[in-house]
């Protein structure tokens, strides 16, 4: 009998704490598959954020550092500067990366730090119970904007790929999604490319993944994937925002 589908070596054999229908798990698996395929598991160090993926280190079969809220890019910088031979990635939510950690991600990207960021954008604060995130859509309901986000008072949702692509330093920036099989395949390609660039020591690379939070969106898993397609994707257009080749 041939095995056609198995757990990647880069994932541990444990039970997940993520809610049913949450796509954090899909993203974990894609990262793990890529680490396996590139053969870098044994020299990889992940940096876990604060947010629902705070326990990412329980799932990946690689060394991990647990960062303060938003500071993963600074930890990754410190580590990678000393160990350029290792593969370093941060895994961060939108609250982590686009709110409290905005400064750290911009400066790490601008310095062209040679690590990879997996940016999970679910347009809400999951772990703390559904408060407004910097990426929460206009009119979207969250516990701290119960009547829907009023952008006149809170500003427009921040588009990180667009914002970072304004930087001159070579970077690989792509926005993808995981709400259907076709997008999942694309996401894996983007993650693979991001790590490949790191292996080639080319640039800072960030893959923004539109993710779901059925629990705090108050939707079923199926409604959630539809909502990504109908709402999230139109404000956060998918695509490649920058590649190192573009930068002379």
């Amino acid at each position, binding site marked *: 009998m041939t095995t056609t589908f198995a757990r990647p070596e880069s994932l*541990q054999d444990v039970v997940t704490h993520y809610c049913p229908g949450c796509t954090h798990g899909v993203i974990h698996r894609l990262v793990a598959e890529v680490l396996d395929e590139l053969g870098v*598991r*044994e*020299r*990889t*160090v992940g*940096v*876990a954020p604060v947010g629902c993926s*705070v326990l990412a*280190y329980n799932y*990946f*079969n*690689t*060394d*991990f*550092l*647990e*960062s*303060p809220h938003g*500071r993963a890019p*600074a*930890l*990754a*910088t*410190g*580590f*990678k*500067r*000393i*160990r350029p031979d*290792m593969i370093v990635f941060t895994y961060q939510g939108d609250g982590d990366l686009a709110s409290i950690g905005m*400064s*750290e991600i911009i*400066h790490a990207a601008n310095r062209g730090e040679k690590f990879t960021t997996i940016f999970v954008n679910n347009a809400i604060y999951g772990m703390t119970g559904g408060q407004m995130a910097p990426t929460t859509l206009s009119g979207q309901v969250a516990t701290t904007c119960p009547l829907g986000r009023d952008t006149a008072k809170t500003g427009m949702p921040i588009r990180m790929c667009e914002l970072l692509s304004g930087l001159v330093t070579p970077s690989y920036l792509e926005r993808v999604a995981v709400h259907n099989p076709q997008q999942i395949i694309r996401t894996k390609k983007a993650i693979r490319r991001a790590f490949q660039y790191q292996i080639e020591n080319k640039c800072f690379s960030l893959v923004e993944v539109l993710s779901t939070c059925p629990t705090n969106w108050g939707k079923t898993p199926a409604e959630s994937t539809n909502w990504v397609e109908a709402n999230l994707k139109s404000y956060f257009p998918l695509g490649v925002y920058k590649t190192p080749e573009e930068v002379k």
Partner: protein
Amino acid sequence: MAKILMKGNEAIAEAAVRAGALYYFAYPITPQNEVGEYLAKRLPEVGGVFLQAESEVAVGNMLFGAASTGKRVFTTSSSPGISLMQESISYMAGAQLPVVLLNIMRGGPGLGGILPAQSDYFQATKGGGHGDYRLLVLAPSTIQEAVDLTMQAFYLADKYRNPVMIIGDGMIGQMMEPVEFPDEHTEPPLPAKTWAATGASERRPLVVKSLFLDPIALEKNNIVLHQKYEMMKRDEIRYECYKTNPKNKILLVAYGTMARICQTAIDELETEGISVGLFRPISCFPFPESQLYAEATKPNIETVLTVEMSMGQMVEDVERVVARQRPVKFFGRTGGIVPSPEEVIDQIKQLLAAGTPAKAKA
């Protein structure tokens, strides 16, 4: 090795390199900028890393990442910068990471000023960040001592897997003195850094973290930390007595730059036939409690006078230790004003003129 004339900040930078700390992350702030400027040139020569971060918030966290490699890493800053690092200092203490931080203190609170002060004593010795943790805190009073303590600090950080803070002030950073660098380390060997993240090739993956969601596990970690601090209290007490003798009625207590000024005052008084002694904590945490108690409660001592470049911070430790066995008085200037030896002499003479105070209640 011959002595060379060096500025305090540069001597500390060179000491760090010689201690094998080749990885430096920092953000500019007066009055310690010479450290970064020196290392920007020096570290590339020895295959090290110099990185100017975007903020002290980032610096602290770069240290976390960098220390996780198991290499010797450090930063230097001054009061407002150290405040911004408190988040990461708490995390590094929680994750048991060895790092060395130098605080060349300036006047505060807030943006304060850029002149020398000792007003971050509470922050350094009592916390600053959240949670049950302590730093090992060392306070040099000469540039030579700053060099020696810097080199020791990296060893101690590794030994205890704990952040170590050196507190100096603008005077220590800016003045020039002849210094000698020890040729070799003579410290006992340290255990292998099996906790460092180096890739899960020949072992199970490991996590460098301060997160313990299970209260039993968190309490266990806090107990481990506490035992470490108790070990420091037993083994890492550093202090010096200057001209303490049975003729003294007054015992001065001061650290760092202020201790030097007190020494000048003591020498001056000696020429007038007045004999005064000084107790100088070198480790501010662990505080030399029993040693100070022994000096302060000698039968001849009538008053203990604590002198600081602050509104009174270490004096609380002195009061705690002397525990009403003797009256504890305080004299300090703040805002960046360094008390002169004459001011200290004046304080001492006033105390002597006031005569023996009624014996304090035990």
